[in-house]
């Protein structure tokens, strides 16, 4: 027996577009049937059917190959629609591949959703058995682990209450608890750690870590890079259905970050970018034509703490007076964190003759790791000349080693440093 747990060769899956969203009615099929022979008669091109097939289908997964050894914990990352869930569905035999094959050596358990098959009318106790059976546990196995499951979910008091009276948090805890006690040799997990409160999430992550110590093979799909980093040694990066990278987690995560939207490049042509319509004449007399962040050709990624070097190119169509340029930094949730104005540093620009100009701006990087958008603007006198509320997107990445085991990423926008002292005894007695 080899030590291979899963071997996939050229796995591919093709979907008809819209297949996931709609079902067919008999009428559609009859209509297609009627139309097809007519189409044959009306033009002789036999390629019609094959080209329309290509148009209306999409490869959700294409030629994905990998080999995973026993006991490896593999993260699968990629943007939405990259094929992560499709891959797990194929490996867990929910759907069949269109091409390619995979061999799996061992009992497979998949956890693509927490609480699949939970019935609101049934009690907690009943749902444990039902859900366990659905996930592939034998009832003897559930008997054996029953107390453990109940303890983990912290629902002892409500075991005989119908689940519909549970809070959603309790339902999630119970559902995850059943799933967490599944003991297959190969476990496929999709985004299920994102449930419950922070404390429970930490507990789940702890449980997941113990799973890999038991020599079990785990596939773990998540958008939570922190969780992926702390759980997985290897990672598979998918992009548009193809495997882009398969190797150590750190390199894989870095490549993934480079692929994020907006991080596609560090320069952006803004000549034709749409301007807000509610302000008249934007971009008429003066127009931002290009904005660049940093000097490399790579993606717009800046390490935390490293200054942001911004270069802008503008086109001036008429002579302007008392010009001011502005730069704003906006968080993903739309909060404008800061606004810089050129007059703070160089005063009002008294006169700008028609022509092309470039200007640069160096910004102290006080921002917490995360993604931000650059906002650009220019004014003269009382008039707005140009305004790009959303130009370049960039990512600030943490330069520090990752704190392990914390599921919650740090929140907040700033990366400012604080000085801390270790706790010192106050010299007071307890209870006095």
């Amino acid at each position: 027996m080899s030590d291979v747990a899963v071997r996939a060769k050229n796995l591919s899956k093709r979907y008809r577009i819209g297949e996931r969203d709609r079902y067919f009615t008999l009428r559609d099929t009859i209509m297609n049937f009627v139309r097809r022979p007519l189409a044959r008669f009306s033009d002789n091109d036999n390629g019609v059917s094959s080209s329309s097939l290509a148009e209306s289908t999409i490869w959700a997964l294409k030629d994905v190959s990998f080999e995973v050894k026993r006991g490896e914990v593999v993260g699968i990352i990629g943007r939405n629609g990259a094929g992560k869930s499709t891959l797990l569905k194929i490996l867990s035999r929910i759907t069949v591949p269109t091409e390619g094959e995979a061999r799996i050596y061992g009992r497979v358990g998949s956890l693509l959703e927490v609480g699949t098959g939970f019935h609101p009318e049934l009690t907690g106790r009943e749902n444990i058995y039902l859900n366990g059976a659905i996930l592939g546990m034998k009832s003897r196995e559930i008997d054996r682990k029953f107390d453990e499951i109940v303890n983990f979910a912290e629902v002892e008091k409500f075991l005989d209450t119908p689940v519909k009276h549970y809070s959603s948090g309790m339902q999630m805890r119970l559902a995850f608890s059943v799933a967490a006690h599944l003991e297959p040799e190969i476990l496929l997990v999709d985004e299920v750690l994102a449930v419950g409160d922070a404390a429970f999430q930490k507990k789940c992550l702890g449980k997941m870590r113990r799973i890999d110590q038991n020599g079990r093979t785990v596939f773990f799909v998540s958008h939570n890079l922190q969780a992926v980093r702390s759980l997985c040694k290897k990672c598979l990066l998918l992009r548009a259905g193809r495997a882009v990278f398969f190797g150590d987690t750190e390199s894989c995560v870095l490549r993934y970050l480079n692929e994020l939207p907006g991080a596609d490049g560090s320069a952006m042509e803004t000549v034709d970018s749409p301007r807000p319509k509610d302000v008249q004449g934007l971009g008429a007399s003066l127009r931002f034509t290009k904005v660049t962040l940093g000097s490399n050709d790579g993606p717009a990624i800046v390490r935390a703490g490293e200054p942001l070097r911004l270069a802008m190119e503008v086109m001036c169509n008429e002579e302007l007076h008392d010009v001011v340029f502005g730069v704003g930094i906006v968080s993903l949730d739309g909060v404008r964190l800061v606004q810089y104005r050129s007059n703070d540093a160089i005063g009002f620009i008294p006169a700008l003759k028609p022509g092309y100009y470039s200007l640069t701006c160096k910004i102290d990087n006080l921002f917490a790791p995360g993604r931000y958008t650059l906002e650009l603007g220019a004014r003269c006198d009382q008039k707005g000349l140009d305004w790009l509320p959303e130009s370049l997107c960039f990512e600030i990445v943490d330069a520090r080693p990752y704190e392990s085991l914390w599921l919650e990423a740090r929140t907040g926008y700033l990366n400012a440093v604080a000085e801390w002292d270790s706790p010192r005894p106050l010299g007071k007695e307890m209870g006095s």
Partner: protein
Amino acid sequence: MNLRDESFSSPAILIRPISGWVALNLRDLWEYRELLYFLVWRDLKVRYKQTVLGVAWVVIQPVFITLVFSVFFGRLVGVPSDGIPYPVFAFCGLLPWQLFAYAVTNASNSLVANDRLITKVYFPRLVIPLSAVLSGLVDFIFAFAVLLAMMAYYGIFPTLALWTLPGFLLMAMASAVGVGLWLSAFNVEYRDVRYTLPFITQLWFFISPVAYPTSLVPEKWRFLYGLNPMTGVVEGFRWALLGKSQSPGAWLGVSVVVTIALLIGGLYYFRRMEKNFADVM
């Protein structure tokens, strides 16, 4: 490594494209028998929740229908009942009919009703329509008890032919599974099934000898009539339990053949369509 020894002997699972007809793989189904049990159990637990009368509905429904039939068909129309008191005659026919109709309806909608399971977990999909059919069996047992009471009241006692009853019961279930498999798989892709089901069951009811005896059917139509497996089942029930009806004739053989064809055809059709379920749901 604390993997159990058996894990090393477990054979590799091969995942690859499937096209055309596939083997039934009933061994896989056997592996998942516990899930079948739990799904039936869930159905039973949940079915009469939040009803005042609860399980009593199982009995009330056929009794009430029998009452209506007895008044309209028995009294007003004067449908013959082969010398058996009409209420017993009708109830005895309703028993397997309701089992069948319930099973077909339930099974046909079962896949669509359990779409979450199908798109999120692997198990042999056959488990779902099978559990839908099996859960009707409990209703049957309750109603059967009522029939026995009714027979005692009218002083009718089963004859030696009673031992054939399980055979007819099996036939009712098998044809329900067969039809249910076809319709449930069809329903996944064409939701028209849900709307045609009431018509199908109603029509089927009238072409089955539930409210009237087969003796009303003209001789030349008998063969065609026998193509309906429920003809054999209903007549068989009356013969096995009430004894007084004529024994199911040669067309019982036709019914059996049709049942087997429906079942095997349904199984293979279902297996063929199965691979698309999760994609089309």
